[in-house]
């Protein structure tokens, strides 16, 4: 390769160079700002994670797999995955190979390093010795073709998103459209520009062939410069608008991944990690189809992608509306390809609201509660009491108080299994704190947590049993109860069955299990309830289950959704559950039970009701086995 121009410079590089410098400076400043906004301990944690080899390797692996290959999207839909990874990975490889090419064939780079890797083909001419570079020429053309195929798919997706497994997509803002069109035009323009110079600077199957085919037009070197100008301008425009469009997700995600791997949580509603998440949102709209509120068209603008957009715009009225309406089912978080935590982000927005009145729970006297719950009774199955007998404290919670069948059947199961148990809130207890935590009132929630902690620690129990996943989640996450195991009744019943403390008679009833949001996505309990039900009958699955289970619509999470608005959501969730025509719908949350029972065409039960019906105390013989 030899240089064609002595100066190695042409004015057309200016739009690109300015744009690139602008975007780099902008991103660096933004990154420093986000890191400075982190609380001191979090910042320390972050820096530590960067020098710990284990997390560092994970960071690099995650960035490669998520930002370039888009593995999550591949899992969702192959075409969607290919479209994203072809553009991201193809472009990345063009940049990498472009740099290799420049390093191989030029010396004395200097300031030219800013633009040479991008516009190399304009400035050089092919010589005899360059034949060695044919592999590189081929790679450049190959990856350009890969990117172009992605762009074609992207254009198709705008018209027919259903081919890509998406029913609805985001409505782009004006600047998003500018970014979109400039991004789409970059690569065809590059192809055009490089085709012009393919007979001078060399090329491969794509550029060279194009040069031959359109020889009349492309060999006319007077047309050459406008093509290179257009290419540079497209790049420049894209870089200048990038910080104000959804494409900001590209640099932000590279920061978000190490932040997440460092174990940092959202503290401030708008700063630090929250800000990184908001800007990491690619507006792909996967959360729109996931949102259970989406059954009503009016709620589409209240999904996480639009929350992120409104936070970027500081539109306080809409932020409040969107944050308060959400059911906090966490499905958008589960499906988000970049890991925006839609539910936690909303709770954080709720937490900065100013209230004129704040209840104070610090004066509640817990002496009576401690007395009441320190009252263990043994179950009536003496055969098994010889087995290790831990004391179980059963906290039913307020939702279970409204569905007394759950409490009654759970106590009956405990009794059959010969467990020594005590009721923590038989006579009314203190709220677990989760509802008020969801409302963003952390101080009040903390007071309740402290009160309950005092009661539980003084009860003398070994195990805290919960039948409500809403309670279960906060007990697992916000309570510190040394020496006490916190367990949900689905897990506990599974343990009772597998250890042979109760005996199940299996029949042919077809059960479907509804994963409650707080138990499944909230606490990751998916297997135990299924094991329990499979031992009682035939387990069938809902169309969407586990991580993608659909919220029943009764969630305490929403502060503003009216009763009439939730009906469509419940009916949609029920339709999903009965896709395999089960005889009975089983859930493990009193709120889901109450909500589904209202509209279901077939019986809805809690898992404890099922097991109490089909179980008998294990006899001694069985235990000796």
């Amino acid at each position: 390769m030899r240089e064609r121009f002595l100066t190695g410079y042409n004015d057309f590089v200016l739009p690109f160079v300015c744009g690139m410098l602008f975007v780099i400076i902008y991103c660096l400043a933004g990154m420093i700002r986000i890191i400075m906004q982190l609380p001191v301990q979090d910042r320390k944690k972050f820096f530590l994670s960067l020098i710990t080899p284990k997390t560092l390797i994970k960071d690099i692996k995650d960035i490669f797999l998520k930002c370039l290959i888009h593995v999550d999207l591949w899992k969702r839909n192959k075409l969607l995955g290919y479209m994203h990874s072809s553009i991201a990975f193809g472009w990345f490889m063009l940049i990498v190979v472009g740099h290799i090419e420049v390093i191989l064939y030029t010396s004395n780079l200097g300031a030219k390093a800013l633009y040479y890797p991008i516009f190399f083909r304009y400035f050089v001419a092919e010589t005899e010795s360059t034949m060695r570079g044919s592999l590189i020429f081929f790679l450049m053309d190959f990856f350009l073709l890969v990117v172009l195929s992605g762009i074609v798919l992207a254009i198709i997706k705008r018209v027919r998103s259903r081919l890509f497994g998406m029913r609805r997509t985001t409505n782009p803002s004006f600047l998003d459209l500018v970014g979109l069109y400039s991004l789409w035009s970059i690569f065809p323009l590059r192809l055009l520009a490089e085709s012009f110079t393919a007979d001078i600077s060399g090329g491969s199957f794509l550029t060279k062939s194009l040069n031959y085919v359109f020889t009349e037009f492309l060999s006319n070197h007077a047309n050459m410069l406008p093509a290179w100008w257009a290419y540079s301008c497209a790049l420049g425009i894209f870089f200048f608008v990038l910080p104000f469009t959804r494409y900001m997700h590209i640099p932000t995600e590279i920061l978000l991944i190490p932040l997440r791997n460092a174990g940092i949580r959202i503290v401030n509603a708008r700063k630090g990690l929250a800000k990184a998440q908001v800007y990491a949102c690619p507006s792909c709209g996967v959360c729109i189809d996931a949102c259970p509120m989406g059954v009503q068209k009016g709620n589409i603008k209240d999904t996480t992608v639009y929350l992120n957009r409104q936070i970027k715009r500081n539109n306080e009225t809409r932020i409040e509306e969107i944050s308060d309406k959400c059911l906090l089912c966490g499905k958008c978080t589960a499906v988000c390809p970049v890991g925006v935590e839609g539910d936690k982000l909303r709770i954080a927005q709720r937490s900065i609201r100013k209230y004129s009145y704040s209840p104070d729970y610090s004066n509640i006297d817990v002496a009576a509660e401690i007395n009441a719950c320190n009252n263990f009774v043994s179950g009536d199955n003496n055969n098994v009491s010889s087995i290790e007998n831990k004391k179980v404290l059963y906290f039913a919670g307020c939702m279970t108080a409204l569905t007394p069948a759950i409490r009654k059947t759970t106590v009956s199961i405990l009794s059959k299994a010969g467990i020594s148990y005590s009721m923590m809130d038989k006579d009314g207890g203190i709220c677990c704190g989760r509802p008020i935590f969801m409302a963003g009132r952390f101080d009040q929630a903390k007071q309740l947590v402290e009160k309950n902690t005092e009661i539980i620690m003084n009860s003398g129990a070994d195990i805290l049993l919960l039948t409500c996943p809403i309670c279960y989640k906060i007990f697992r996450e916000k309570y510190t109860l040394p020496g006490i195991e916190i367990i949900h009744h689905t897990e506990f019943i599974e343990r009772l069955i597998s250890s042979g403390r109760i005996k199940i008679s299996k029949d042919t009833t077809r059960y479907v299990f509804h994963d409650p949001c707080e138990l499944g996505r909230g606490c990751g309990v998916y297997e135990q309830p299924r094991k329990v039900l499979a031992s009682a009958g035939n387990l069938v699955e809902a169309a969407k289950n586990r991580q993608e289970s659909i919220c029943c619509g009764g969630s305490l999470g929403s502060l503003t959704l009216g009763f009439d608005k939730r009906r469509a959501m419940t009916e949609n969730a029920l339709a999903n559950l009965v896709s395999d025509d089960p005889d009975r719908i089983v859930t493990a949350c009193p709120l889901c039970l109450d909500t589904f029972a209202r509209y279901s065409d077939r019986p809805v039960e809690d898992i404890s009701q099922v097991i109490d019906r089909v179980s008998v105390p294990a006899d001694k013989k069985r235990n000796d086995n």
Partner: protein
Amino acid sequence: MKENIVIIGGGIAGLEAAAQLLDLGYKPIIIEKNDHLGGHVADWNKLFPDMTPANDVVSSLVARAADANIFLNTEISFVNRLNDSYNIMLSNGISIITRIILLATGFSLFDASRKEEYGYGVYDQVITNKDLEHWFNTGDDPRIGDCAMNAVGFVHCVGSRDEKARNSQCSKVCCITAVKQAIELKQMFPESMVYCFYMDLRMFGKKFEDFYISAQRDYGIRFIRGRVSEVSENIDGRVIVKAEDTLSGKPVKVTLDLLVLMAGMVCSPDSTKVANMTSLPLDSDGFLKSRDNIADIIDSPREGIFYAGACTGPKTVPETLAEARAASLKIHLYIKGLEK
């Protein structure tokens, strides 16, 4: 007078209409799915506000309607709409061609177990208003009378005026029924404490208010304004009721030997079934839709189909009877119009 008139439902509305039509010289056909006539009233013991025995009302109606063609244990299999008439196929294989149908399909009692927080079907000592009347009639219910009956509670508006139970309408008769039943229990167990948990007391009818005053003054029944929040069971099987007394602004908790749920009225599934067969619309409250809710409450939007009684919404016994009479007159005039 060969005109066939089909009355669907042999409750008090159907019987009264049949009796009136017989007097007018017609020979109506009554179709009743149960093995006896009288509907819900036949299950009741005494009627407010004069403690009239329900049996007297029903038996006199049955006697007056005895000459009608009565099909017991019979349901409607399907209804075909012909040119100017209907072909009704009955479950006993008989088919009837008629130009006039009177729907007197009545109501269903709200399924109290759907308000699970009140514990019906979960706790033994929780019963419904209907269970209590059954006990008044037969004395056959181990849950009542065998226990101490020191304290009894009534919960008003169970499945009425309750959006979460999918019924926003007022069932109209439960307030006064609760007062009546409370007085009756107090008469049987003078030493017991009787509580009524209500959100509003709607004493709209003749002598209702006097009845209510008497319940307080003469029988010492306690009326607590506030919805029951939850019901639980203690170790000896008694039920613990928690509620808020919204007049004093304090939470209350009482332990009761018996809790009676005043289950409200909902549109009966049989009404909905027949409405589907004859393509009649439902109103927003879930009951059958009248042509006009003020002027034409007994007219359906379809030619030749009329309503009487609680199929168009909750009604008291006298209201139902009055509607049945009005419907028979309407049918008479309609037939006169057809003959011209």
